[in-house]
Every structure is written in structure tokens, then in C-alpha cells.
């Protein structure tokens, strides 16, 4: 009996240099297995979208290889387009389509039989609670609903790999959960999912494995818990500062901090928890802070330490 095909996506040592000499991808290697939800995290300009465009055959790498199962996606962009389903970060161009039409035509374009496409379309519309908009024109859909329709377009007849670039942008919290359920479901069906995002908190819950990339290079790869293992023994102390209050002098036990607006996030050693709570209580007592919370560190703390990234106007340090 023939061996079943191994449909792993293999990105090996991919290099992409743009005309302006920017090395958007600088020797990236990552593998995504069938059924796996794989997160690709990194700040703006890290090279995530450049990598995606090379996988789906829109850009050609300057070095390295990309393959999906037996197919060389660099040499055969036609195969790349057939085997990959793609939800881009920009909204889908469906203003003059009814939601269900946009989904049906995409299914038809992907080669699906009409009955199958319609059945899958109805399942997904129900699962994401989009029923009330099924006959609404794209131009009248809110950003979040349009995003979800785009998700259904990308997954109504998924290829071997589904690439989702910031799928939950503008989507309400309830339907975000429904969307993540469907992403997990794709994995259960054996589809590989490559999730591109900067939303670390959501990614932590949704992915099996993830890579953090910055400046075109892989900084770390692993499961969310293995990524956090370096943070074992540390805790996160979050202090909501009173509006207008300056960042207080930080005591030596604060190993890392970020302030976004009034939200001061610090990472401390767990042996210093009692001191830290005392310090936070003192800030509340002095009226400098409104409340505080102590918890385990999250993937976001790891991410910020690795990328040194400032997504919002923020002050960081360690």
C-alpha cells in the first residue's frame, strides 16, 4: 500500500531581500504539520506578510525553499494557489456581493461542487451566527461581520493549509470565540492553519505551536507553555495607575515593565510577591494607583521581552 502523503508545510532558510536592501526574511525556517494551528507572531514589519506572500506564490524567495507535501511551491505557484486558502489582512472586495454569494462564488472558484459549497456555507454561517446577514450586501456589513464573511470565504473549501492574517480584527468578543472554535475544527479535519497575528493573548489560547519573528529572523519557536518556561518563577503584577499619575520609582525586584496609558505591567520574581503587593498597596493608598492584580506571566510578557516591541505609545524597560 502506498505511503500516505505527508502534507507538512516546510519553509526552509527562506531569504527575501527587497529592492531597498531590506532583508524582510533572513533565513526563516519553520514547519507546519497537518492538523496543526501554528501562530506566526511578530511586530509590524517583522516579515510575516512577506513570508505568507511567498507561500501563496505572490512573491518569489531570493533563497531557501518552500514546499507543501510533494509540491515545491516556489517552482509551482499554480499549485501554491490551489493548495493554500488565504484570508488577507485587508478586507475582502465584496461590496457588491451578498454575503452568501461571496462565499458561494469563492467555493466555486476553489472547485467545489455547488451542493457541497452550499452545505458548508450554511454550516459556517450558523456556527459563526451570521444568519441575519446572509443576504446583506458587503457594502452594508460592519467591519467585523465582513471579516467573518471573509473567514468563511477562505475556509468554505479549505486547501491543505489555511493562512489567516489577523482573522479577528474588528470582530466582537463573542464571535471571536466562535471563530476560534472553527479554527480548531479545521485542525481536527487535518488542515494546517497558519495564523498571522500580533494579538498574543488570543494566539496563546488558539495555537498548538508558534514562532516569534522579528526583523525577518526566527527568535523562538515552541508551544505556548514551552515559550513561557523561561518565565517560570516569575509573576506579572499589573497596576492601573490613576489618570495623570507619573510612573512611580520602580523597586529593584521589578525585572521588566511596560506602561501603556494608565496600565503599568511589571514582571517580578515570585519570591518577591509579598514585597510587590505591599508596594502596589502603597501606591493605591497614596492615590497614585487605582487597583492592581497579580498573576502568572503570559505569552505577551515573553513576546515583549523578545521583540522589545512597542505596539502602542508605551514605555518599556527592564
Amino acid at each position, binding site marked *: 500500500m502506498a505511503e500516505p502523503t505527508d502534507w507538512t508545510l516546510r519553509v526552509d532558510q527562506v531569504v527575501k531581500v527587497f529592492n531597498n536592501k531590506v532583508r524582510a526574511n533572513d533565513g526563516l525556517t519553520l514547519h507546519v504539520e497537518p492538523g496543526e494551528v501554528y501562530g506566526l507572531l511578530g511586530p509590524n514589519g517583522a516579515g510575516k506578510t512577506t513570508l505568507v506572500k511567498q507561500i*501563496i506564490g505572490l512573491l518569489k524567495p531570493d533563497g531557501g525553499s518552500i514546499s507543501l507535501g510533494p509540491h515545491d511551491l516556489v517552482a509551482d505557484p499554480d499549485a501554491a*494557489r490551489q493548495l493554500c486558502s488565504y484570508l488577507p489582512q485587508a478586507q*475582502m472586495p465584496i461590496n*457588491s456581493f451578498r454575503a452568501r454569494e461571496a462565499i458561494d462564488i469563492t467555493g*466555486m472558484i476553489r472547485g*467545489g461542487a455547488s451542493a457541497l459549497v452550499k452545505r458548508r456555507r450554511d454550516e459556517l454561517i450558523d456556527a459563526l451566527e451570521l444568519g441575519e446577514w446572509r443576504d446583506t450586501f458587503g457594502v452594508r456589513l460592519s467591519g467585523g461581520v465582513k471579516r467573518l464573511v471573509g473567514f468563511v470565504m477562505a475556509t468554505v*473549501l*479549505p*486547501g491543505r493549509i489555511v493562512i489567516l492574517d489577523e482573522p479577528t480584527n474588528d470582530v466582537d468578543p463573542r464571535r471571536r470565540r466562535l471563530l476560534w472554535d472553527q479554527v480548531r475544527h479545521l485542525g481536527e479535519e487535518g488542515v494546517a492553519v497558519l495564523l498571522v497575528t500580533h494579538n498574543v493573548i488570543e494566539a496563546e489560547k488558539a495555537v498548538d505551536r508558534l514562532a516569534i519573528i522579528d526583523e525577518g529572523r526566527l527568535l523562538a519557536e515552541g508551544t505556548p507553555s514551552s515559550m513561557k518556561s523561561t518565565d517560570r518563577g516569575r509573576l506579572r503584577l499589573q497596576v492601573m495607575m490613576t489618570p495623570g499619575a507619573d510612573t512611580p520609582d520602580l523597586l529593584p525586584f521589578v525585572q521588566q515593565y511596560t506602561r501603556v496609558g494608565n496600565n503599568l505591567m511589571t514582571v517580578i520574581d515570585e519570591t518577591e510577591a509579598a514585597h510587590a503587593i505591599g508596594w502596589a498597596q502603597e501606591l493605591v493608598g497614596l492615590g497614585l494607583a487605582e487597583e492592581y492584580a497579580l498573576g502568572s506571566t503570559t505569552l505577551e510578557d515573553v513576546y515583549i521581552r523578545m521583540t522589545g516591541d512597542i505596539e502602542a505609545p508605551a514605555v518599556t524597560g527592564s
Partner: protein
Amino acid sequence: MTSQTLRSGPAYWWRSYLAMLRWDLTSLRMVLPITVLVLSLAGGGFVLAVDLFFGQVPEEAALYVSTGVLVITLVTIGLVLAPQLIAQQKIEKTYDFLWSLPVPRTTAAFSWITTNLIIGLPAMTLALVVAVLRYDLPLHVTPMILPAVLLVVFTGTMIGYALAHAVAQPMVTMVISQVLIFVIIGFSPINFPADQLPGWLASAHEWLPFAPMADAIRAAITKGVVPNVARSYLMLGAWAVISVAVTAAVLGRRK
């Protein structure tokens, strides 16, 4: 559930073509009727305006205007609207999504040519009817109208397509397409004989595609007006090949 095997062959091509045609027509659904209407009114209106402007139009001039305007109604969409739509896709960043769709590239092009025919044909027909009613023209419609219309629309659409894909900057594409329509209407031997143009411009038009478009259409519906239509077909064919080659090179060459 998944699309797991690679598709190929004529059935794949045909299905993809039909799907892309449905995509294109649905995309343009909001503007399609109004575009056909405006183009028809513009075509018919142009024929009548010439009469109003000059009072008495000689038969030869009437023949040129009435047949020339057909070319304008056929190629405006392909040469002007198409580059602008594609420029718009680049600005709105939907271009990448559309080119990531799993269809043979040629089906997207043929779907677009078909869309152009669907928009151009009613406008062309109306302009012709208006011209016949107004000027009582000695028309002699032959079956050559079919290849002439198809070749004119194919070439016009592919030139616009090549332009839109080859020029990276959407704003530049828009400017070029505006200039093109200006040149076609005002400075091409489409609505008048080439000998009315300055010598250098007339010579340039021997190698540009616009005069051959007009000659091919004119030869198919008149008698004895176009002396050598074979050269026009050759020129149009050459322009079609060049634009297809440019488009294929641009779309095939991934950066």
C-alpha cells in the same frame, strides 16, 4: 471537505472561467447598468452632437463618425475602466487576494474580456442604430463584424490589462488611462481620415492600434471605404500578442 487534489485540464479551465466571470459581473453589479447606459448615451450622443455642431455633415464625415464611435464604445471600458479598477485594487490592497485565487491566470483575463464585451456591445449597437436613423448611411454589414468586434475588444482590453499590471504605481496607471482616452477621441484617425492629422501624427498612427481598430470595424460594415484591411488585422494581432506577452510576463514574474 478540503480541496486536496490539484486540478488541471480543460474542465478545470472552463469551470474557473465561469466562476471568474460570475465574480467579475457580481463585482461590477452596482455600476454595470449605469456604465452601459452612460456609454450608450455617450456613443449615440456623440453621433448626434456632431450633427448639431456642424449643421450639415457630409456623407463621408458622417460615415467616419458613425463607425468610429463604435470603436470608442467598444474599447473605452477595456482601456480606461479596467486599468482604473485594477489601480483601485492595488490602492485598497485587494489585488493580492484576487491574484491568490486558485484559477488559471488566463481565465481571469478571458472573464474580463467577456465582461468588456457585455458592457460594450449594447452601447455599440445603440450608437449604430442612432447613426443609421440620423444619417441614413449606406451600411453594408458583413459577417466580418464578428471577428472585427472580438479582435478590437480583445486587443483593447489586453492593452489596458497590460498597462494596469505592468505599471506598479496605481496613480500613474490612472493618469495614463485618462491620457489614452483623450488621444483616442481627439487625436486618432478613428472619427476622421488620417490625412486630416498632421503628418507626424498620421505616421505614428500607422503603428498604433487605434486606427487599425477603426478600420477593422469600418471594413466590416461599409463597402469601399477601407482599402487595405489585411494590414489592420495584422497590426491588431501584433498589438494583441504584445499586450498578452507583457501581461503574462508581469503576472508570471514574481518579484
